């Protein structure tokens, strides 16, 4: 299912300064991404409307007006209502918000299940999201954070690879936040409480599940905002296209100084730098050094 890149960096066609487009996202990833994007937006909007109906959150099994909440909507909004531009529907309507919410809850949950199965089968998870211990070393994390600050998000030697912050955030969303928001949602259903009472034990009661549901939803909202900001910073046309057609152009290749003793050329590339090798960033991999030099000097 998962399409490999048409052209690996350093392949015989290399040598041009501009990187050729590669296939970045498999069809299953693209479909799941957009289904989830729509679902998350609708679920956040309708969820905030549902919160309007009782804008207080509690810990434990029970919680109502005479009990002690840990969060009150009125702390944020004078009328204890989330503003209409953030909610679905805009005007107070608990019943309709529940219809939207419970419909897209099914879409979100089953899309995630399907995506997880497909991505285990085509090894997308194992290949692209596996975090290696080496990537979590402090020095690597600092170097990657500095690269992020320079808006360099991709390793030129392996532009398909996700950087560690992408991996960590995607793993957190796919394997922690989305399952948590689904199971805390189920834990609020009185029908499910009877059938699967362990849901309440796991989350420490229905009102705790409701609180966790809200917190996780807000974390997903933060993820969505940061995600959108980084898409814009990384080049919105290229990034959005890659999620629609799958085609994506890696970072512009930059020519580097000729190989030295400390970073010798390998397999026709100079320098064959990767982040994990600790070599300088921005170095390119070029199969035809003469043409590369010509392109640079020209």
């Amino acid at each position: 299912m998962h399409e490999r890149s048409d052209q690996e960096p350093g392949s015989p066609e290399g040598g041009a300064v501009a990187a050729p487009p590669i296939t970045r996202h498999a069809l299953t990833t693209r479909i799941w991404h957009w289904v989830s994007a729509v679902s998350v937006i609708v679920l956040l909007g309708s969820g905030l409307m549902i919160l309007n109906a009782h804008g207080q959150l509690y810990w434990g099994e029970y919680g109502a007006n005479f009990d002690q909440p840990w969060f009150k909507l009125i702390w944020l909004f004078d009328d204890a209502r989330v503003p209409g531009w953030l909610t679905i529907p805009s005007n107070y309507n608990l019943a309709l918000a529940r219809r939207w919410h419970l419909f897209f809850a099914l879409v979100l949950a089953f899309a995630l299940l399907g995506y997880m199965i497909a991505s285990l089968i085509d090894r997308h998870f194992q290949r692209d999201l596996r975090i290696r211990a080496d990537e979590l070393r402090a020095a690597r994390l600092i170097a990657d954070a500095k690269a992020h600050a320079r808006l360099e998000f991709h390793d030129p030697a392996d532009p398909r690879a996700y950087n560690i912050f992408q991996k960590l955030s995607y793993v957190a969303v796919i394997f922690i936040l989305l399952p948590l928001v689904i199971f805390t949602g189920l834990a609020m259903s009185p029908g499910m409480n009877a059938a699967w009472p362990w849901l309440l034990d796991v989350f420490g009661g229905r009102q705790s599940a409701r609180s966790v549901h809200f917190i996780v939803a807000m974390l997903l909202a933060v993820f969505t905002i940061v995600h959108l900001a980084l898409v814009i910073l990384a080049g919105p046309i290229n990034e959005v296209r890659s999620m629609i057609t799958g085609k994506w152009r890696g970072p512009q290749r930059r020519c580097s100084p000729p190989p030295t003793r400390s970073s010798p050329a390998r397999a026709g590339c100079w320098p064959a730098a990767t982040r994990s090798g600790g070599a300088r960033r921005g170095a390119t991999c070029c199969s035809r050094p003469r043409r590369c030099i010509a392109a640079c000097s020209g």
Partner: protein
Amino acid sequence: MLFKAEAVHRSLQRLITDRHALAPEYSETQMSPRFRSNGTSRPGSEAYARLMAGNFADWRLTVNGLVQRPLSLSLANLRSLPQRVQITRHDCVEGWSAIGKWHGPQLSTVLRLAGLRDTARYLVFHCADTLIGRPYYESIDLIDAFHPQTILAWAMNNRTLPVAHGAPLRLRVERQLGYKHAKYIMAVEAVASLDGVYGGKGGLWEDAAGYEWYGGI
């Protein structure tokens, strides 16, 4: 399309879970210190005021519709039946929860006394109160009607059911949301279909506001 989700949720819940599963029950120490009331806090009709003034001695529960033996039961009749006591959590569709203790005969006991006809599919609860200008009513199917925790509660937290909580009798249908737990019950009617019963959607809030008839989600 959006409104189909309720049926999918209900079918999925009934497909992957045990339809006879019991709602969680709690201990006395886990009860809400104060159980808020919701909806009608006191029905406005003169008839109800007279019943209340008489301490509901003149109140009768009518059981009719598709039954072999229509019944008219007093509170004393209901109290003489086998009783169930349960401490359960009440979940409002708005999001809050309160835990209380409920006391009353199982609905199934009453239904066996009346003898449901084969064509009966739903139980409709007619209530003494009105909300937004309409008579309150609710309905459940036979799965929930014969569920062991579905009781007709006449006492709450070791006291006679307070007026704000539905005196003299309210439904407890523990695997569904609060609006399904009809208060101020006057009659239980067995029907084959919900079409033609009030607005046809099986409950006041279902008719008036579009809440799900299946309140188990």
